């Protein structure tokens, strides 16, 4: 798969290193143990190498498909409240709640 600015067909598949895995894992908010970083980098490179086949396809002038079925648009509805007044249900699965609120770690020191 071409890296940003790269020529089509240029292969940058082996582009994920340990530092990149750390960066992506942080973006995804997933803690990854240090000992698994090398293996993960290898797996991600294998998958990126596999999807790099797409570079062979000429997609000039092709509009990206963004719906589940071609030509299907998103329906809009009237902007009005259709739900609510169900605080108990909203909180029913909370790992911690108090006085009708979710309890989370302190956000501001």
């Amino acid at each position, binding site marked *: 798969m071409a890296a940003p600015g790269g020529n089509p067909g240029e292969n940058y598949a082996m582009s994920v290193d340990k530092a990149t895995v750390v960066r992506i894992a942080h973006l995804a908010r997933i803690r*990854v143990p240090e000992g698994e970083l090398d293996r993960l980098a290898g797996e991600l490179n294998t*998958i990126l190498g*596999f999807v790099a086949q797409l570079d062979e396809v000429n997609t000039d002038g*092709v509009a990206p498909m963004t*719906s589940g079925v071609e030509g299907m648009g998103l329906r809009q509805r009237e902007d009005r409240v259709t739900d609510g007044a169900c605080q108990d249900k909203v909180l029913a699965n909370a*790992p911690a709640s108090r006085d009708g609120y979710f309890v989370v770690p302190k956000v501001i020191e």
Partner: protein
Amino acid sequence: MAALTDLTIAEARDGLAKKAFSARELTSAHLAAMEKARGLNAYVVETPERALEDAAASDARRAGGGARGRLDGIPVAIKDLFCTEGVRTTACSHILDGFVPPYESTVTARMRAEGAVMLGKTNLDEFAMGSSNETSYYGPVTNPWRRRGDNRKLVPGGSSGGSAAAVAARLCLGATGTDTGGSIRQPAAFCGIAGLKPTYGRCSRWGIVAFASSLDQAGPMARTVRDCAIMLGAMAGFDPKDSTSADIPVPDFEAALGKGVKGLKIGIPKEYRVDGMDARIAALWDEGAAWMKAAGAELVDVSLPHTRYALPAYYIVAPAEASSNLARYDGMRYGLRVAGRTPVEMYEATRGEGFGAEVRRRILIGTYVLSAGYYDAYYLKAQKVRALIARDFTEAFEKVDAILTPTAPSAAFAIGERTADPIAMYLNDVLTVPANLAGLPAMSVPAGLDANGLPLGLQAIGRAFDEETVFRVGATIEAAAGFAARPPSIG
């Protein structure tokens, strides 16, 4: 009469109408079978009390002179990706530990309104990400089939592996599945049952735990094509709560079955003869084409030139959407929470512990392809290739009414046999993924056995919102194949 667990939905419906047996008897027979077959690990939650209550209510309705709907008194299993009010729903992920939805998915609510009796929730690959049901937090499902002369446990396929195994092992009359890249059709093929992925938008996605929202679609899994048609009639329909739900009428799918394929043009796409396809599967495909011809259809060679790019495009689009959808699991509002001093530490600890290896891999790939500087090269490129794949089908459907292919490149494999190599696992879906990318209806029907005595499926793909033609092709395959083999474990 056959054992109550051996009936088709159509037979059970008729038996209930004639009062040959009660819904309670039918449900009890299945609950007893489930208890004996716990070793398969097909169900992750059993709901026997509720099932018996619902069955008794169904019997009372009938005694009072009227059945409620098409599934009144029919015992079914629900994939644990569908939220069920008051019944634990985890998508077989550690991160949804103990989650009990305060609401019911539209599809299961419709089935309930038609009188269906839920026996329990079935096992699946975690968040439906997998092709073998081996990524489930609750452990793998065992396929009720075995290779001849070989007692190794086989996978049921995935991700709807629990549903497929439960249907094949006579632990329910039918089950719901979901299909993002083949998750109904491939396990149906591996377990010797029928399964249909409807057109995108046919069944509401509301209340189904999301994986890849532009691809996910719910559908029926059952032992016959007719049973799938009956179930789909109860599952499908417009839902204002899903912005991608199609506001078009639901036809009488069952009525289409009798129409046959006489006069239809059936496309045979040469690109589906993929490298490494089992020779018996290639031969079965030829046989299937001959069945179509014998039933009065005309065979037409078609080309779907971008087929080989479907899987790589899928492994960009699906993880990208998954990484976005699964961002909601943060340990704050429901499910697992792992302690951290700050919210970010809590997110990272919860998600690090809560997601299994395959889900984590896909979230990371998805995050990478959507990250700054890579979006155009990966995600946008894949969406363009997706458009070309859809265009291939549009052009083919100018010449033909349906397309016939095998469902999967191999039969079921042994548990643990393919877990080491993610790409080898992904290749299971090479023949099913294109229909998801194009949003088209597609069905797998059991058509024969491989050299080891394992079931194989053929796939029919149709035009958007033309499930009726898919059912007609499916019913023709079913009649010609005369598939009567049963998993050896149930005799």
